[in-house]
Every structure is written in C-alpha cells, then in structure tokens.
C-alpha cells in the first residue's frame, strides 16, 4: 500500500466519491506532483493543504480530523 493509497483511504471516509478527485487536485496544485510519486516526506504538506481546502465544503472539525489522521501517516 503506497502512502497515497493510505491517504485516499482516510479521505474516502470524509469525502466519499469526491476523495480521489480532491486528492488528485491537492497533489497536482499544492505539491506539484503526481499521486503515484507521493512519499512520506510529502505527507505533512499534503495534510495541511487538505485541511485548508476541505474547509470550503465540510465542517472545520471534520477537516481538522481528516488532516490529523493523514498527518499520523508521516
């Protein structure tokens, strides 16, 4: 299981079918990389980016919880 798969599994719990599209965008726009090339070194930045972006369409508490779980993968 790659780091991206782990992040995707967490995101799916909060975002359902939007998780894949949302993470793809975060990787490409915020980290400037492809999902397949995500390593543990990217996790911290990805978690931060996910929290900020997710706040636009889910509760802040849920966004924080999702970011925290992603950060735990680092």
């Amino acid at each position, binding site marked *: 299981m790659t780091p991206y798969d782990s992040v995707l599994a967490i995101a799916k719990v909060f975002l359902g079918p939007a998780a894949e599209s949302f993470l793809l965008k975060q990787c490409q726009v915020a980290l400037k990389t492809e999902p397949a090339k995500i390593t543990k070194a990217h996790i911290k930045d990805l978690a931060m980016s996910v929290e900020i972006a997710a706040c636009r369409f*889910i509760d802040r508490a849920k966004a924080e919880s999702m970011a925290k779980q992603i950060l735990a993968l680092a």
Partner: protein
Amino acid sequence: MKPTIRNKLLAGFGGVLILMAIVAGIGIYSVFRLEKSARDATRIGGQLNAVALEIQVHNLEAQRRIKGYLADVKTIGSQAAHDKYLDEADFELHEIEVLADRAVRIAPDEEKRVKFEKIASGVGVYETALKHAVEAAEQGTSEAQAAANAAYDESAEHLHENAEDGEAAGKDAAQTSQEDIVSTSRLAVWFSIGVSLLGMLLGIGMSYGLARAILTPVDHLKGVAENVSLGNLDVSVQRYSEDEIGDLADSFSRMLAAVKYFQMEAMEKSAPERTL
C-alpha cells in the same frame, strides 16, 4: 456491545419482558401467599373451634359421670361406683387437659391462648374439688359431704364457664380467619394493582426513551435531506448515536461533501468560460 438499533430494541423488549416476568412472578407469589394464608387461617380457626367443642363435650360427659358417682356411691358401694363412673371421668378430664394444651399451642393470639390456659388450670382445680367430694362421699359426714359437693359444684361450674369461653374463642378464631382471608385478598389485589401500575409506568418510560433514541436522529436526518433536496447544501450532519442511524448520518455526510465538492468544481470550471 455496540449500541445498535437492533441491540437497543433487543434490550428494550428484553427489559419489558423481564419487567412483565417480575410482575407476573409477584402476582403468582401473591396468589400463593394468599392461598397459604387462607389455608392456615382456616385450618387454625377450624381446629381451635373443633378443640373447643370437644373440650365442652368431654366436660359435660365428665360432670355427668361424676354426678352419677355421687348419686350412686351410697347404694352400689365405693368400689363399684368408682369403676362405673370415676375411671371414665378421669379419662374425660385427661382428654380435656390434652385438648386445652393443644389449643394453647395453636391459639392465634394471646387473648384466646389465655382462655384455653384457664381451662387447663381449671381442670386442676376441678380434680382437687372432685378428690375432696369423693373422699367426703366415701368417708365424711353429711356436713363435710355438703361442703365438698358445694366446692365441687362451684369448680364444675367454673370449668363449664371456662369451656364455654373456649368455645366462644374457637368460634371467634374461625370468624377471624375469614376476616383475615378477606383482608389478605384485598391486600393482594391492591398490591397487584400497584405493581401493575409500576410496571406500566416503567414500560411507558422505557418505550419513550427507546422511541426518542431512534426518532431524534431520524428527524435530524430528515431535516438535512429536505434541505439538500431544496438545494441548500450548507447544512451540517450530526452523528447523534453510535448505531445504524449514526452510520447512516456518516454516509449522508460523505455524500453531501461529495455533492458540495463536485458542485464547487463545476462552478470553478465554468467560471473562466463565463468570463470568456
């Protein structure tokens, strides 16, 4: 154990069943207790009444024989009269003592016990008076006979009165036993009504709690669904419980997040086109 709706319903209905079993158990216990109480009361009252009547019969028979002895002792001789009357009279007096002791043991209250104790002690006085009357009849002067007979008559009368008191106490015990049955019945009925009402109140409380635990999150989800169906996506989905409805709320939350995200994406994509 996870607090799912299935488990909540099982616990709720299980609780109601246990409650019903407790109520039924108390009801059955009350009925058996009532039956036992009625049987005991009837048995004791009836026994005391029967013993009192028996004492009276033995007393009358003893006095009849002693009167026969006193009347015949001069004509048929001391030994013959003794054999004919006094042995039987002794037997009757012994029976009275035994019965009085038995009545004292089974008497349901102090008042009745005292009456039968008087009979038992009255037999002793009676026997002493009888002994003096017999001695006077066999050897004494006519004055001594008259005095002994008067003392005997007095003790016989006294024993007769005591026996009558005992008979009245026996009848009273039988009557009281019936009153006891009635009061125990009333108590059992009120007790059953009280326990049933308590069971009903607990059942209503449990049903209300169960219904509330299920309906509150369902009402919330219904409100959220109505808002979304009307195009208002700015609603928050709360997870009220850790059961199936809580899981449904999470699914609904994910679905709502996806809808909002895709809507946002669509709007972002169409924005540059609109500006062009």
